[in-house]
């Protein structure tokens, strides 16, 4: 068991345990903060896979953006002062059984399939190659995503600000 393996198991346990807390705890604020650790664990897994730029993007966008947005959503849609911020659950047992079957199927497919595994060469720092690919092969998608983000920004602002007549 090498050092790499120990680090992988550490991050995997952090990710899975905090994701489990996210979906099982009844307090929605605890869920939000567990999601923080899940995102950090996934960022660690990205680093182990040689994706350093992606790990930083994960932390900046998910933790710095999406998680803050979700916590704002929680705080704006719950009456924190008088009602407890617990969230109800429905269909616990059927959901657990169904998801268990799904997980068993997925895992057996992923473990028993003979993946064509030939470790390619990932450069030591990926920022240069990602930037080059984004502005050459993927430039159309890159521009479209820029437009999409602008549309999302305008759309979100106009939806959220609409007054009820």
């Amino acid at each position, binding site marked *: 068991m090498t050092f790499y393996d120990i680090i992988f198991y550490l991050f995997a346990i952090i990710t899975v345990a905090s994701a489990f807390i996210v979906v099982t705890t009844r307090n929605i604020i605890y*869920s939000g903060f567990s999601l923080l650790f899940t995102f950090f664990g996934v960022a660690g897994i990205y680093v182990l896979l040689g994706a350093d730029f992606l790990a930083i993007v994960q932390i900046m966008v998910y933790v710095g953006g999406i998680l803050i947005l979700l916590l704002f959503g929680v705080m704006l849609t719950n009456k924190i002062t008088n009602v407890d911020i617990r969230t109800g659950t429905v269909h616990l047992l059927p959901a657990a059984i169904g998801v268990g079957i799904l997980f068993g199927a997925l895992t057996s497919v992923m473990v028993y399939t003979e993946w064509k595994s030939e470790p390619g060469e990932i450069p030591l720092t990926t920022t240069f190659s990602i930037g080059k690919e984004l502005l050459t092969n993927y430039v159309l998608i890159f521009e479209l995503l820029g437009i999409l983000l602008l549309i999302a*920004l305008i759309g979100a602002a106009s939806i959220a600000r609409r007054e009820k007549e």
Partner: protein
Amino acid sequence: MLQVGLAHFLVVSAILFSLGIYGIITRKNAVMVLMGLELILNAANINFVAFSKYGNLGINGQIVALFVIILAAAEAAIALAIVLNVYKTFANVNVDEINNLKD
């Protein structure tokens, strides 16, 4: 089995995906459903990056994962705007009680 390879990353991603599905199915609060959605997108991203390393795809898998992160950010913004509007109309965000499109 202890040597970490492609299958280990895929199994972690399968666990995250299943937990995300479980959260989406069982939670009433719309914001919690969004959290389950983020778990699923992260699981998909782990798969992209893992195959990018082990499948000799070079940097392409990481770029697709980058696009997924961007789309997740846009989706979260729009979804929360909709959730805020729903809250203004129905005074709660429980997805099992919201059953008409207009009042």
